[in-house]
């Protein structure tokens, strides 16, 4: 589903920077997903829920990851919470909370931000975004801008493929390594 994204971009300098994306992984395992700070935060919240409501077991499936939390001791004593995780299917692709992905999606590449800055989907406020979901892109093609200290850095794709998902929100800050796009390097068509 195509959407026009209106963005608010400050004027950058004439000299644009073109940057390759940071380390793009192939896929992410359950263990790696569990180390992500936002997932860790969520796990902590679930632990709190467990304690607050005096539950002995809680199972949750989110973002292609199934988590089971189980209290080892009787309620009233300090809980030792056991964490079991399994990916839905062999591997799950990492994605932003805003765009939940269907279960098994192996083989997607993640484009990550190589710098710290502000993410913009289009070159200027009244321009079209560089890419939309579903677009075919080529290696070296500019996908977005990350602005840092008034310098507009054009982020290039490292692969040929199709944009499956846009993971960052335009005008929002992004950190080093933050996932920006999911690309299917071997699109069907």
């Amino acid at each position, binding site marked *: 589903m195509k959407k026009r994204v209106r963005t608010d971009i400050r004027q950058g300098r004439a000299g644009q920077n073109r940057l390759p994306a940071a*380390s793009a992984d192939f896929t992410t395992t359950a263990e790696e997903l569990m*180390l*992500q*700070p936002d997932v*860790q935060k969520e796990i902590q919240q679930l632990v709190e829920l467990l304690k607050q409501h005096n539950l002995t077991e809680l199972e949750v499936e989110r973002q292609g990851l199934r988590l089971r939390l189980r209290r080892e001791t009787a309620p009233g004593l300090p809980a030792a919470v056991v964490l079991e995780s399994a990916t839905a299917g062999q591997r799950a692709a990492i994605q932003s909370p805003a765009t939940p992905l269907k279960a098994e999606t192996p083989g997607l590449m993640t484009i990550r931000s190589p*710098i*710290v*800055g*502000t993410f913009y989907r289009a070159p200027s406020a009244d321009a079209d975004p560089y890419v939309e979901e579903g677009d075919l892109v080529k290696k070296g093609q500019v996908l977005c801008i990350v602005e*840092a*200290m008034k310098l507009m850095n054009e982020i290039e794709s490292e692969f040929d493929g199709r944009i499956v998902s846009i993971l960052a929100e335009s005008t929002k*800050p992004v*950190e*080093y*390594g*933050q996932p920006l796009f999911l690309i299917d390097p071997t699109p069907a068509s």
Partner: protein
Amino acid sequence: MFKKILVANRGEIALRVIRACKELGIKTIAIHSEVDANAMHVRAAEERVCVGPADDALSYRNIPNVLSAAEITGAEAIHPGYGFLAENAHFAEVCESIGIKFIGPTSENIAAMGDKAKAREIMARRGIPVLPGSPGELRSEQDALDAAQKIGFPVIIKASAGGGGRGMRVANKEDELVRAFHAAQTEAKATFGNESVYLERYFLEPKHIEVQILADERGRVVFLGERDCSIQRRYQKLVEETPSPVVDDRLRREMGRTAVEAVKAAHYRNAGTVEFLLDKDHHFYFMEVNARIQVEHPVTEMVTGIDLIKEQIRIAAGMPLAYRQQDIQLTGHSFECRINAECPEKFTPCPGVVTRYHPPGGPGVRVDSAMESQAIVVPNYDSLIAKLITHGQNREEAMARMRRALDEFVIEGIKTTIPLHRRIFNDAEFQKGRVSTGFLERFLTNGSS
């Protein structure tokens, strides 16, 4: 006062700064590399920004990413800690130009004090006793020979842009000088990218005494006692104490006033340390100014009751010093042991998983550390994992507390320097306070002093 500060560091010093900010009601932003995503200092801060991969040149010292992190989070000031960007004059200058306050000295201070030969010149012109040495950079072998003949052997040739014991060579006699000169230049070029060297008289068994100062933005300066850092291995400090067992009140006042004079000569701002060499006859000579908060600052905090990090933040926020010199009182005695993740025999870094970590406690014991059970000591950064600090009413009590605390300290899964510190604190010469900078090397080769 600042509302938000970005801490451009990691580990124990990042946690230290975050603690001071919390007490002042200032929000904090932690930056981290990818391998530090779950580090204690990151969890302690309100906001976090990943600034790069493990390699600190690409993360903690990545100036564009660090400044961009400050921009996107709205940080008004950056505390650089020690190491990393703390003495990077260019970084301080860029902060100044974009309106983010660098919590520390000015970029000019850093540049001037970072050039060791130039710093000595500034002090010498002000009449401050400097270590007998070449007036400036040695431009040739002949320069070196002339300087050495005037000053007298033995001499040491040191890198102007140097520190940490690198780019230094001793020459005991004239026929060793030329080789020492070239070797020092080569190492200086390789380590610091700058082959400029200068020459000083070399003292065999000096004591390393440094004076802590604070200077506000109106130019008011106070000194906060001295620290004795004579327990060193290859110019890396291992144990520090205050006050120095060989410095009496009169010498303390003289060195303190000289340190204040040095700082004023340099128009220095914020926290800093003036390093002196003390010879056997208790003559002291200016060595250098460390333009940063130092690792061993806690021992000064213990005896003065003054929080140096808070003072840095207050000074940077434009507040005048809350203390006059007569308000600075030194009470009791304090030691610090640097606990490094190193194999005790070879001092090689010993990274790994800390399977069990339980720091000591009780009266007069303070531990500054970002270590915890199940944490991983990564090989990418320096090996300091904890600072163990004790305080007592006198030197004996502070030592007894350190011996007790070292025995209580549990760190399993990696090797640390705790066994070495135990041996040092059980050594008779150390207990008498009669150690100079050669002590530790001899201690290690002989098994005792």
